[in-house]
């Protein structure tokens, strides 16, 4: 600390203030852009009516990672939800997720607790077809999900189980819609190789 600014607090204070202000301004501008992209109906996040369509998650050779693909009509619970109904159902799902604190066992987008599997692409999990549809005697994936969510402790697959969180039928339907909609969000390739072998 021998140069002239060495121990001059005022000099460094000015530096700290300018660094903070510049960074905050950049963050503000980027946030405006990011929030547009992640609005439901924005370029990375589908509108809630995506629950009426088929959702896939496929390797995109151009991008070099898995991308959600929104396909043709594939109704949920055999119903077609208009935008208002879809929004209401998905909102219900989110309310269930918060009021039951699902995120304190599971992760969403990889964020939360690490005691239970990530739910980002749960809608697309092969376990529904392979394990839970036969186990619950259901004809569709959504039916199996609803039955599982209402009484998870009745359908154990291994030593660790999900407890009964007292979901109603409507609660469970909201959650299923939520998970279906969420699986269609473009998450820049997370999780990688979901449900298929790693790409070379």
């Amino acid at each position, binding site marked *: 600390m021998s140069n002239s600014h060495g121990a001059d607090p005022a000099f460094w204070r000015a530096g700290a203030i300018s*660094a903070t202000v510049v960074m905050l301004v950049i963050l503000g501008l980027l946030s405006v*852009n990011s929030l547009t992209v992640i609005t439901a109906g924005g370029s990375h996040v589908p509108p809630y009516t995506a629950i009426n369509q088929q959702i896939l998650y496929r390797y995109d050779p151009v991008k070099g990672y898995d991308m959600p693909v929104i396909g043709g009509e594939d109704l949920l619970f055999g119903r077609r939800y208009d935008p208002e109904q879809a929004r209401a159902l998905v909102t219900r799902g989110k309310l269930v997720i918060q009021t039951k604190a699902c995120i304190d066992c599971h992760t969403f987008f990889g964020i939360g607790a690490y005691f239970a599997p990530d739910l980002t692409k749960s809608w697309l999990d092969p376990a529904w077809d392979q394990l839970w549809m036969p186990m619950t005697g259901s004809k569709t994936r959504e039916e199996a999900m609803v039955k599982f969510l209402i009484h998870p402790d009745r359908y154990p697959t291994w030593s660790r189980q999900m407890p009964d969180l007292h979901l109603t039928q409507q609660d469970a339907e909201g959650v299923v819609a939520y998970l279906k909609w969420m699986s269609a969000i473009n998450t820049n390739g997370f999780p990688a190789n979901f449900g298929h072998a790693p790409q070379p």
Partner: protein
Amino acid sequence: MYQSQKLAIKYLVVAFALFGVMIAAGLLTAAYYLQPRLLFNTLDFSTAKILHINTLVVWNLMGFFGAVYWFLPQEVEREVVGIRLANVMFWVFCAAFLTVAAVFAVVQTGPSAESTLWLINQGRKYVEAPRWAALGILAIVAVFMFNIIATAVKARRLSGVLGVLIVDLVPLFVLYLDAFPSETNMAKDMYWWWWLVHLWVEGTWEVLIACIMAWTLMRLLNTSRRIVETWLYIDIGLVMGSGILGLGHHYYWIGTPKYWFALGGFFSALEPLPLIGMVVHAIYDAGVHRMHCSNRPALYWMFAEAFGNFFGAGVFGFMMTLPQINLFTHGTQWTASHGHFAWWGAYVCGLISIFYVVLAEARGARQIDGPLWKWSFALLNLGIIGMAGGLLIAGMAQTFHERALGGSTLQSFITAQASSWFVEGMWMRMAFGVMFAIGYVLLVVDLVRVGRMASVVELRIPEVGA
């Protein structure tokens, strides 16, 4: 002693008691990994974990409040304005904590209705406390702000440290407003939530503890105000310069645009810089003082703070901060490894150091030493390092089996959890967690006895204002 300092001691005592509650809840949370049938459908993992991390946030906040209420009157040489109200808020804080903890433990969750968010549980990580309690925290922080600002105005004195603290109070309050929304769109929800977690905990809290450590340094080592303030500004410049856009390392996978890969990766990779600065400074101080100080525990905990922050946040954070790596480590026990180590180094070590300083001054002890603090120091630090190690091993198993090979499906999750590395990592965490808990008990015993018992050995008082 100022009234404000009496309040400070109350805050610190409750904070350290809650530290114990938090450890108990942590051990319980860890136990579910080893015994999955534990309290099944009675008190599940989620509830234990909520108690663990919410108590963490509350006791850290209380510790910061305690430290500020202790140093503030010394800084301005007068009683804190509005201290009555601050005392009332202390009891409000305690009562609110007890109520929330009881509701979490007994009621746990509620029906899917808005009323649950207000009264029982908000279900957002770290800020699960219901809205009424979040409003309470806002009120408490508001009074805290009022105390500090009104005192500075009355005293007509604004040192650099105090100025920084006052500016920092604004984001401390504003970012906490983030504890209320229940946004349907998870992408947006997470976007703002990270302002609370990264910018609040890793930003405004960092500045808050830096101010408190600056005061501590001046008292502990008689470092001159000019030097302390210069370092404080450099530290803030680096923290904000790297950390504000470093926020982008949480925006890789939540639906946000890809430019965050470059921005988040670059700026967060710079985040360790201020931490390295702290280590360099600590070593320099150690050389100057040859580790002589009348309050050795406080000094050692201050060094633990510098090194812990550097390794836990700087090294363990850096390991997984680039998107190419984070894709595979994200949301595994690896994160928990870093989370524990970083939080320990960034806040807990500092709070312990401060408590020793406060107790020594409060009890008029001229020399603080003895064997006990060394044992607790060793057990706590080894405990956290061992826990971080166990979690890292478990996290690596997850990275390999679940994220890289298995594609993060339920089946791959199960494979990873059942792998021997993972299971051993969980046992290791538990074993070192118990060690940590023993260290805590010794710490409490030492804190109760310090300066009271016959540990007054030799006099080596640094001259004031040297």
